[in-house]
C-alpha cells in the first residue's frame, strides 16, 4: 500500500503517546496532537490522509473539530474515537461525514484495519475527483 499519513487527536496524553508508538511500530506514519484547534492548524501546514479524532475533548470537541476538518479538507477521512460512547454524538459524527467509530481502548489490529479502509476510501474518492475533472 502507498505511504500515507495519519494524525491522531486526543487530549489524553498517555493514550496518545501509546497509540502513536504502536502505530509507528507497524510502519504507519503517525503523528499525535492533543487538541482540536492545534489539529486544525496543523492541517493547514501539513498533509494528512486519515485522522483519528477523540470525541470528548476540552475546548473544541470532536464533533466541532470534525465539522471544521470536513469543511477545510472534504476528502480527509476521519475515524472517531470514543470512550464514553454517546449515541447522540455517534449519530452526529456519522452525519457530519465521519468514516467510522472506534471504541476506547482501541484494539490496534481493529484500528489498523479501519485506518486502511479509510485510506482506501480516500484514494477511491481522489480517483473519482480526477475522473470528473478529466471529463
Amino acid at each position, binding site marked *: 500500500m502507498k505511504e500515507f499519513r495519519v494524525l491522531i487527536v486526543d487530549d489524553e496524553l498517555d493514550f496518545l503517546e501509546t497509540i502513536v508508538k504502536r502505530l509507528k511500530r507497524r510502519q504507519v506514519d503517525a503523528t499525535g496532537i492533543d487538541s482540536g484547534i492545534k489539529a486544525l492548524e496543523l492541517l493547514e501546514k501539513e498533509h494528512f490522509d486519515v485522522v483519528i479524532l477523540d470525541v470528548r475533548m476540552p475546548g473544541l470537541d470532536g464533533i466541532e473539530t470534525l465539522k471544521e476538518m470536513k469543511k477545510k479538507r472534504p476528502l480527509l477521512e476521519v475515524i472517531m474515537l*470514543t470512550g*464514553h*460512547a*454517546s*449515541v447522540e454524538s*455517534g*449519530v452526529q459524527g*456519522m*452525519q457530519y*461525514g*465521519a*468514516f*467510522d*467509530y472506534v*471504541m476506547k481502548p482501541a484494539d490496534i489490529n481493529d484500528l489498523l484495519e479501519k485506518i486502511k*479502509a479509510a485510506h*482506501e*476510501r480516500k484514494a*477511491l*474518492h481522489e480517483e*473519482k475527483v480526477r475522473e470528473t475533472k478529466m471529463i
Partner: protein
Amino acid sequence: MPNESRYTIHELYPYAASVLTAGLAIALCLSKEIIWAAVALVLAVTSFLAARRLTREIKKANEQKCHLDQQLIQSQKLAAIGELSSGIAHEINNPLAIIGQETEWMKQIMKGDGLQAPDAPDELRDSLREIVSQVDRCKEITHKLLDFARKKEPLIQGADVNKLIEDMARLVEKEASQKNIKLVRNYQKDLPRVQTDPPLLRQVVLNLLNNAAYAIGKDGDISISTRQSANNSVELVFSDTGSGIPKEHLDKIFDPFFTTKPPGKGTGLGLSISHSIIVKLGGRITVASEVGCGATFTIHLPVEASKGEV
C-alpha cells in the same frame, strides 16, 4: 413485465374469430360451397377489421393510462413537496417565534433605564443564550435538509456487514444497557462481503438502532440479525420490543419531517435520510409493525454494487 406479455395475448384474442372464419371460408371453398365461402370470407374480413379497430382502441387506452399514471406520479410528487415545505415551515417557525419573543423581552429590558436594574445583565445573557440555541436548531434543520437534497454519489468499498453492524451496536449498547435494553445478535457467520458505501450504511444502522432504543424507552430487547437472501443480496433485520407504530403512520414513516417526537426532539429526517441512502445503495428498506408489538425494519442490500435511482 407480466403486464406486457398479457397485453400481447389480449391483442391477439380479437383476431381469433377472423382467423377461424377465414379458415372456414377456405374449407368451404375447397368443398365447392362458394356462396357459404363468400359469406365466411365477408365475415372474416369484417371481424378482422373489427379486431384491428379494437386493438387500436386498446393501445390508445393503454397510452392514455400511462399518461395518467405519470400525471398521478407527478401530482403525488407535488403533494410530497407541499408536505415537505409545510414541514420545513413548521420546523423553522417554532425557533423563529422563540427568537422573536426573546428579542421583544430584550427590548423591554433595555427600555428607559431598565439596564440599571441589577438583574438586567443576567436577563440579557439568558435571552441571548436562548437565541443562539434556537439559531443552532435552525442551522441543524437546514444542514440536514441540504444533506438530504445533496446527491452524494456513494463510494463503493467492500464491507463485512456483520462487523459494521457490531461496531454500531457496541456504540449503542452502553447507553441502552443503562435503560435495561438488551441487544440480541443473530449474525449469519459466513455472510458474503458486500460492495457498498460503509459510512453511509453505518449512518443508517446507527439511526435504526437509536430509533429502536427510543421506541423501547426502558426494559426491552433490540434484535439484530443478518442473513443471505435470494437474488445475491443480504438481509439486515432490526426488531425492537417497543411501542410499535400505528397503522396510519406506517405509510408516512419514511416521509421527510414525519415525526411523532415532541417539537425540538427530532427533525423527522432520520428515517427519510436512511431511506434515501439505502435506495442510493441499490437496496430497499421496509417496515412492519403493530401497536404494542414492536417494530421491525428490514434492509435488503445487493452483494454486488448496483446503482439505485433516487
